[in-house]
Each structure stands twice: as C-alpha cells, then as structure tokens.
C-alpha cells in the first residue's frame, strides 16, 4: 500500500461538530481494511486532539498519513499554546470552562488517552503561538 494523505480543517467555533474529521478518517481506514482495534485507537486519539483544538484553541488542521506500517496524525493549531506540557499531560488536569464541562468534557483525560492509544506521541507548544500534536499508531505491532 502506498502512502495516503488526508487533510481536514477543524472549525474553531463549533465543538458539536468536532469529531467529523475523526469520523471520516475512521471510515477511510475501514475501507482500507485496517484492523478494527487499530482504527479504534486512531479514532479516539484523533477525536481527543480535535476536541482540544476546538475547546482550548481556535480550531486548526489535521493531517493524516497512512502507510503500510503505520498511521500518523498531525494536529496543528494557532491557539494560546500550553505553558506546562507535563502538567497538561497529567491525568485529571483540566482548564476546560463550565459550559463544556456540562457536556461531559473536562475530565483531564484527553491527552493521557492520546498517549495511551498511540505508539508515539509528541507535543510541541509555544505560548501565544500554538500547539502541534503528532501521534503515530503502528498497524502491525512492532516486536
């Protein structure tokens, strides 16, 4: 299988619509015959990232690259950035506002889930500039 590239713009103003990009990636991966457990990991990790871009930033872009070996997701926003990445990665840490907490967000589990469901993850962020999260999921487990 040669590399396939998918690109999405995630609008920043409507988090009820967040999940459309991850839903569409899920469908594409299913058509490619990727195993269901792999698709589930990609879908959850990407949705968490997408939601974060909408709730904590002003939307952004998602680029997904599928090769025979792995799936790479790059989520890029030009939001406020994360001051302390280690603290943001801590389970339970959240700055989510009340209006989204009442919808079920704000457990402070999004970044920990992204880490849990991916094989590689890096978070690059600069305050006032933005955040880029890169995640990779292996299609065949590496020995």
């Amino acid at each position, binding site marked *: 299988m040669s590399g396939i590239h998918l690109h999405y713009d995630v609008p920043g103003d409507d988090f009820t619509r967040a999940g459309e990009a991850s839903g569409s990636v899920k469908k594409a991966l299913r058509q490619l015959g990727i195993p269901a457990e792999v698709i589930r990991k990609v879908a959850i990790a990407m949705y968490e990232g997408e939601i974060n871009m909408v709730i904590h930033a002003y939307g952004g872009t998602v680029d997904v690259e599928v090769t025979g070996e792995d799936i790479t997701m790059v989520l890029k926003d030009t939001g406020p950035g994360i001051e302390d990445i280690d603290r943001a990665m801590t389970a339970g840490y959240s700055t989510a506002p009340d209006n989204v907490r009442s919808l*079920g967000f704000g457990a402070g589990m999004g970044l920990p889930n992204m880490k849990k469901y991916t094989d590689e993850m890096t978070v690059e962020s600069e305050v006032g500039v933005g955040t880029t999260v890169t995640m990779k999921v292996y299609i065949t487990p590496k020995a």
Partner: protein
Amino acid sequence: MTVAEMANALSVTVRCGGDAMSREIGGCYCGDLLSMVMGRAKADDIWLTVMGNMNSVAVATLADAACILLCEGVEMDAEGEAKALQQDVPVLQTELPVYETAAKIAALLK
C-alpha cells in the same frame, strides 16, 4: 446478546436503532465524563450515561460502543438523534437510575 434482545429484556425505550440493533453486546460501561469513557470503555460495550447529545454519539461511534443507554429519564436531544441515525448508533432510554439498570445488565450478561 444483541442490542435488540437487551432492549427487550430490560423493557427500555428504543429511541432510534437501525442495523446495529443486531450487534452483539460484549460488556457494559457506566460513565458521563467523555474522556473517561474513551479511556475505559471497551469496544462492543453497552454504555450507560446521562449525556444525551451529539458529543456522546460521537464518542459512542469512535469508541465503537454497541449502543448508548440513557438512564434517569434523560432524552437524546434532536441533533444527537440525527447523528445517531446517520452513524447507526442505537440509542435506548430508561427512567431507571444507572445503578439499577447496570445491575440488571450484569445479570443478563452473566
């Protein structure tokens, strides 16, 4: 046990449900914090929650839950229902609290 058989055994309302009503239920998860659900629920779980909106439908789809069962008399809102139909996520509803419903499910899945 399929989603349809479960709905019947529990005598709950089927708010919407298409082909996925014939999906096999593998287990059960209860929770309302969406990231907690995505971290802990397993594929094919019946998910008991009081979150009846677009976002819970998105979570059920992406986390591959067998269906959503809204407890405590909560109803799926109109946008959520439209999305559930489009994504083929069955949505069930009951007046009963989460614990009582989960206890019945535990007995049925034994």
